C-alpha cells in the first residue's frame, strides 16, 4: 500500500523527502537528492516588539509576580505553565511575523473549570490575558501586545458528541479545524467552514473571529451555523449557551456576542456547530479570463446556471499566481492569464452536477468569457488546485527575501469596484513596494488585497493606510470583511461603523469586562 503523506500549511514545518524509496509517495519534485525543511517561522529575523514599533501605552494592569506563577503551577502542574523565553517565542509572534509581544507566561488549561479559575484569579489581580488558539490570525489579535498572560486552547481538543440525526458536533474550542472535519467525515458530515489555515487553526479561534473562508457562499456565516457556545467571562463566570438545537428563541441570543468579538468579551471554551452532510460529488474548475469584467459576468452566470450546487467562487489575479509559482514552486494548471477563477460545485449526484458544470463551461468558453481552464474531480487534483489558492498568503510572506513583510487587507466591496481598488492602490504606491495583488472570495464580495515590500517602513504604512480605508468608506464597504480587527485595525473601525455603534460596543465591553483584562488593545479603538 502506498504512503499517503500530508503537508500541513502555515507555520508548521513542511518536510519533503526526495529519496528514491519514497518515489511512490506522490510529491512531484524537481530536485533529486535534496532534503530540505522549510519552516515559515524560523527563516526570518524577529520583528521589533509591538510595543516599540507602534505608539501604544501599556494599560493599568498588574505585572506578573512569582506568587502568580505559583498559583498557576499549583492549578495546572508545571508541564502546563510555560515560562521559558525561547519556548514562548513562537507564541509571542503572529504568523505574519509582524507583531511581537513580550509575554512571560503561557497557560494550557484542559477544562472549562480551569479556564474559569484562571480568569477569576486574573480578574482579581488585574492581570491582562491574551486568549490564543492556533495563532493563525492576520490582524495581530492572537498575540500579546505587552506582557499579557497567554491562555492557549491547545489542550482543549476533545470532541464531546456528534449527533448524527441533527448533524451537530459539540466539542471543546481547541480542536484543530482540519482534525475536526476529518472526525465528522466518519459520520458523513462536514464542518461548514474551510480556510487555508485549517491545519493549524482552532475552532474556538474561528468562532471568536467569525471566520468566513472558502465556502461561506454555500454554507453561510458562523453566526448561522454555530448553534451553541460555552464561554468564560472575565470574572470567571461560565456562560452556558451550548444548546445544540437548531431553533431556540428563548431570550436574548447571547452566543452571538462571543462570535466575532475576538476574545474581548469572553473566552470561548465549547462550541456546538451545525454540520451539513458531506457532498457525494465535488467538482473544481480552474479558469483563465482576460478581463475583470469577464470575471464578474462568469460569476453571475455561475450563480444562475450552477444554482444550488455552487459551493465556492474565488478569483485570483495574475500577480498572485506569479507569486505562488515563483516562491512556492507550485505550477498553475493553465498558462498565464490576467485573471483566474476557481469554481467549485458540491452535490449529491455526480452525473447531474457534471452535466450542469459542463454546460456552464461550454457556454462560457463559447461566449469568450473564459479563454482557458481545466476541471478536476479527483481528490488529488482538486487538492493541488486548491493549494494554489490557499497558499497565496504563504507565498507572499516569502516575497521579501530577508524580511517577512506583507500588508494584508481584507475588504468587503461592491463587486463593480472590486479590482479598481487594486489598480488604484498599485498606482498610488508606485515603486515603494514589491507587489500589490488581489484575490479573494468574489462570491461574497470579499477582496484580499496584499502588498509586499522589502523593509518595514512606518512611511509605507502611512502611505497605505488610511488611503485604503478611505477608499473603502467611500463605497460603503467594510475595512475588514472576515479577518477581524485585532490589534492592527482597531483604530479604523469608524470607517465602517457609526460612532453610536462603537459607543454601544464600548458599553458592552465595560459591562462584561470592567477591568478590561480580556485581550486588551484589540478590537475597540484606543481613546
Amino acid at each position, binding site marked *: 500500500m502506498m504512503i*499517503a503523506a500530508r503537508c500541513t500549511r502555515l507555520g508548521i514545518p513542511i518536510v519533503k523527502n526526495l529519496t528514491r524509496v519514497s518515489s511512490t509517495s506522490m510529491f512531484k519534485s524537481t530536485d533529486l537528492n535534496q532534503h530540505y525543511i522549510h519552516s515559515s517561522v524560523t527563516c526570518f529575523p524577529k520583528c521589533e516588539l509591538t510595543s516599540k514599533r507602534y505608539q501604544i501605552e501599556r494599560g493599568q494592569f498588574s505585572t506578573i509576580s512569582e506568587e502568580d506563577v505559583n498559583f498557576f503551577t499549583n492549578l495546572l502542574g508545571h508541564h502546563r505553565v510555560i515560562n521559558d523565553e525561547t519556548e514562548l517565542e513562537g507564541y509571542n509572534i503572529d504568523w505574519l511575523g509582524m507583531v511581537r509581544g513580550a509575554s512571560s507566561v503561557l497557560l494550557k488549561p484542559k477544562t472549562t473549570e480551569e479556564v474559569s479559575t484562571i480568569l477569576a484569579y486574573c480578574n482579581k489581580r488585574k492581570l491582562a490575558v491574551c486568549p490564543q488558539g492556533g495563532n493563525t490570525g492576520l490582524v495581530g489579535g492572537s498575540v500579546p501586545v505587552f506582557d499579557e498572560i497567554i491562555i492557549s486552547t491547545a489542550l482543549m481538543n476533545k470532541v464531546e458528541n456528534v449527533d448524527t440525526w441533527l448533524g451537530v458536533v459539540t466539542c471543546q474550542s481547541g480542536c484543530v479545524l482540519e482534525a475536526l472535519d476529518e472526525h465528522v467525515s466518519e459520520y458523513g458530515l462536514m464542518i461548514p467552514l474551510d480556510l487555508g489555515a485549517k491545519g493549524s487553526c482552532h475552532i474556538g479561534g474561528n468562532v471568536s473571529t467569525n471566520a468566513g473562508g472558502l465556502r461561506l457562499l454555500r454554507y453561510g456565516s458562523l453566526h448561522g451555523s454555530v448553534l451553541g457556545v460555552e464561554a468564560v467571562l472575565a470574572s470567571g463566570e461560565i456562560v452556558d449557551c451550548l444548546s445544540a438545537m437548531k431553533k431556540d428563541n428563548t431570550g436574548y441570543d447571547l452566543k452571538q456576542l462571543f462570535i466575532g468579538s475576538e476574545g474581548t468579551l469572553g473566552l470561548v471554551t465549547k462550541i456546538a456547530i451545525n454540520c451539513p452532510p458531506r457532498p457525494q460529488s465535488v467538482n473544481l474548475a480552474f479558469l483563465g479570463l482576460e478581463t475583470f469584467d469577464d470575471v464578474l459576468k462568469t460569476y453571475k452566470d455561475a450563480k444562475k446556471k450552477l444554482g444550488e450546487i455552487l459551493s465556492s467562487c474565488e478569483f485570483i489575479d495574475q500577480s498572485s499566481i506569479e507569486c505562488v509559482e515563483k516562491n512556492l514552486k507550485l*505550477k498553475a494548471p*493553465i498558462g498565464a492569464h490576467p485573471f483566474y477563477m476557481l469554481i467549485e460545485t458540491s452535490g449529491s449526484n455526480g452525473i447531474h452536477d457534471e452535466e450542469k458544470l459542463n454546460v456552464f463551461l*461550454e457556454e462560457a468558453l463559447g461566449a469568450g468569457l473564459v479563454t*482557458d481552464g481545466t476541471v478536476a474531480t*479527483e481528490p488529488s*487534483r482538486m*487538492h493541488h488546485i486548491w493549494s494554489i489558492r490557499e497558499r497565496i498568503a504563504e507565498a507572499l510572506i516569502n516575497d521579501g527575501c530577508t524580511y517577512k513583510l506583507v500588508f494584508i487587507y481584507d475588504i468587503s466591496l461592491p463587486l463593480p469596484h472590486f479590482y479598481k481598488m487594486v489598480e488604484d492602490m498599485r498606482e498610488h504606491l508606485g515603486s515603494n513596494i514589491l507587489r500589490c495583488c488581489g484575490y479573494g472570495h468574489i462570491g461574497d464580495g470579499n477582496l484580499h488585497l496584499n502588498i509586499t515590500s522589502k523593509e518595514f517602513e512606518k512611511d509605507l504604512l502611512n502611505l497605505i493606510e488610511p488611503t485604503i480605508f478611505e477608499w473603502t468608506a467611500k463605497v460603503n464597504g467594510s475595512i475588514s470583511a472576515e479577518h477581524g480587527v485585532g490589534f492592527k485595525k482597531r483604530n479604523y473601525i469608524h470607517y465602517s461603523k457609526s460612532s453610536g455603534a462603537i459607543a454601544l460596543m464600548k458599553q458592552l465591553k465595560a459591562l462584561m469586562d470592567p477591568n478590561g483584562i480580556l485581550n486588551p488593545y484589540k478590537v475597540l479603538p484606543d481613546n
Partner: protein
Amino acid sequence: MSLRVLVGCKRVIDYAVKIRVRPDKMGVVTDGVKHSMNPFDEIAIEEAVRLKEKKIAKEVIAVSCGPTQAQETIRTALAMGADRGIHVEIPAKEMEKLEPLHVSKILAKLAEKEGAELLIVGKQAIDDDSNATAQMTAALLEWPQATFASKIEKTDGTLLVVREVDGGLETIKVKLPAVVSADLRLNEPRYATLPNIMKAKKKKIVKMKPADLGVDTTAHFEVVEVCDPPSREAGIKVEDVDALVSKLKEAGRI
C-alpha cells in the same frame, strides 16, 4: 522516423483517498470511491504526447484494461493529447483477479496488432505496487526494456534513456522497438484543458475483450487475506540506560 506509441494507463483509487479494508478482508472498498489515472501512467501519457509534439512520435494510442469506468481514464489520456483509445473490457468483479501477466500479454498482443514501435507504461500501479508489467511485456515481445526512466532522448533508431537506480542514475541505449516504464521525475504531466477535454469527446475509443486478443485471464494467484497494517503502539520511556538494556533483553532484542 516517426514512431507509433502505445501507452498503458490504469484506473486506480485516487491517491488522496483514505483506503479502507473491506469487512470480508478480501480486498479494499472500491464502491463509491474516487478513482483516477495511476500517477505514473499520467507521466507515461505526458511523455508520449511530448514525443508527438517534438515530432518524434506520429501517433499516441492510450490503452486501459478495466470495467466501463476505464473509459473515463482513456478520455483523460485523450484530453491530454493521445489520438485514440483502446478499452479492453474486464468486468468489475474480475478486476481484482487481473494480474500483471494478463495485462502484459494484452499489451504485447496490442503492440503487435497496432504496429507500435514504442510502449510506455508507468513503472508501477499505486494500488498493487507490482512493478512487473513493463518488464514482462518486454520479455513477451522480446523487445529491449528501459525501466524507471527519468529522461528519454531519441538518437537514430535508438533511445538514450536515463534510469533512476539505487546507486544513482544510469544511462542506457536501447534499440527500437522498446518498452519504457516511466518514473516520477520523467516529467510533470499537464492538466487537460477545457478545449482539449471537449475535443477528446470526439476521439475514438475501440472496445474489445481479452478473448479477442487470444489472452486467457484465468487467475494464477488467490488472495488469502487483506488486512490493515498493525496499529502503531505507544512507546515507553525508561528512566536510565540499565532499564533500557533490561527491557531490550526482555523483548529478546539483545
